[in-house]
């Protein structure tokens, strides 16, 4: 199930607004295709990110994948639980496996992202 309380990027990140920050993680489809995740290199808190730029790396047994910032802004917080238990992304991609939070983003950029239905059909068509 693709939760409909959040937005999605075509590069398979999900983005959920939570007050004045957005929470970012990767979709169930993304964790499934990466396989067992073994390491996450998180961005630094305070780092400026721009939409579409790579800001962290996920390593699995099969691949090392860049994760792209879905919005421009400043990294407000990172999920440091992932340092010790990167498999949280496999186990709970939409909840405990969140990766980082962005503050100071432009709400208008949110509109460029897909909703749950849009993401699901994007997956079907690709």
């Amino acid at each position, binding site marked *: 199930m693709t939760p409909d309380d959040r937005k999605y990027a075509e590069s398979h990140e999900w983005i959920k607004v939570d007050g004045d920050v957005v929470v970012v993680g990767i979709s169930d489809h993304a964790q499934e295709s990466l*396989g*067992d995740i*073994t*390491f996450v290199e998180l961005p630094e808190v305070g780092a400026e990110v721009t939409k579409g730029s790579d800001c962290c790396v996920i*390593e*699995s*047994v099969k691949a090392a994948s860049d994760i792209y910032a879905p919005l421009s802004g400043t990294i407000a917080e990172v999920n440091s639980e992932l340092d010790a238990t*990167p*498999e949280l992304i496999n186990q709970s991609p939409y909840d405990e496996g969140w990766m980082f939070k962005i503050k100071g983003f432009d709400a208008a950029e949110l509109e460029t992202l897909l909703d749950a239905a849009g993401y699901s059909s994007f997956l079907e068509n690709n």
Partner: protein
Amino acid sequence: MSIIYEKSIPNRQGVRLPACDVPVSGSIPKEYRRSNEAELCELSEVDVIRHFTALSRKNYGVDTNFYPLGSCTMKYNPKFTEKLAALDGFASLHPLLPQLRHGGLLTQGALAVCYKLERVLSEICGMDEFTLQPMAGAHGELTAMMLIAAYHNKKGNKKSEVLIPDEAHGTNPSSAAIAGYSVKPVPTNPENGALDVEALKSMVNEKTAALMLTNPNTLGIFNSDIHKIADIVHKVDAQLYYDGANLNAVLGKFRPGDSDFDAIHVNLHKTFATPHGGGGPGAGPVGVKEHLIPFLPISRVVKRDDGTYALNYKYPDSIGYIAPFYGNFSVCLKAYAYILLLGKEGLTEVSENAVLNANYLLHSLKEHYDVPCMRTCMHECVLSAQKQAEKGVRALDVAKALIDRGFHPPTVYFPLIVKEALMIEPTETESKETLDAFVEAMKEIAKLSETDPESLQQSPETTPVSRLDEARAAKMMDLVYTKPE
């Protein structure tokens, strides 16, 4: 089996060193000394011999049995070349000796090997000049990309992109990137399994520095459009590079140099039968056409008018040093001896039999596995286990089931563009009986995937360990032995 450190007994030693025969004892001031001895294991020579003999028995090599690992050319490694490489005249020769004044005269034999191997490789590949310095295939690719970058820089060409087919070897893109270029993938034509020439035409422009091509490609398909491709590439003064990983298919049948390739690397450990060594050392000499010669790495071996050999460093446009000396010399020596033994006919027979063996496997297995591109293949054939995967038996399961049947598996999941790929390269040194036995095993596995797929997912069961948990290895990162508390 125990780690060697677990077998250590204090004060044991496997080598007796000479007693000190000089009347002085050197000392190092305290601030420069290490505080504790390195905790190396302490064993007798017998302990060491038994440990490594036991380890060797947990390995599988070409000498064990059939090793059809696609794209790796695991042919038989002749034994006489090992003996030659161990000759004291080569093995004890210090690489700085020829760098003494007139030092070349002290190493005429070794320099002759280098010079003559460069000449014979040039003739085999149709190139004008070779360097033996690159120490592996990927290192050869990188060297060639550096040569191409130097060529463009010298001419003032503003180039920024290297084109690479989507089926290419994984090291191609990183070689181009280190030479300072960005990479653009060129699609493969699904109809004939070869590079899509129309797509190439639309992608080549003034920014194109080079096209990296493997021919036959990783699908085992020979591309006969080379002249057309070369014209497209050369029109913008881009360079055509030949990844020689698959040269074993075309010895005496096709020379990259004749069809306008500008640079090439060859893998001596594949085509020219030097042992793979469990993952190295290999050697990846690079050949070039005349216009790239000025950029070759230094030093270069030259033959003087009086017939002697010497090292020359005076090439102002050279890319400089890419190896400390003259390449992996003893690997080059083995390849040279192999070429001398085979000669013209022998080399041609290598490719004829490699191609015959691959086609024989393809035709013997085509009813049992999917064939993504059914046409005459060269030295390797690519099958797909997609039919089996639908029953839950993936390419990896086929590979592991082959292990239990006494064979090394083919390359799996490569090329990336074929689903459930099984890339099989038999090489010329395998007999029909061996191939037949392999075909029987593959057929049995195909049959079992219909009747009892679960049984295959348990494989291998005959090996010292079964399927290993790679995720655990990456998370735990147990990379060095530590004594349990």
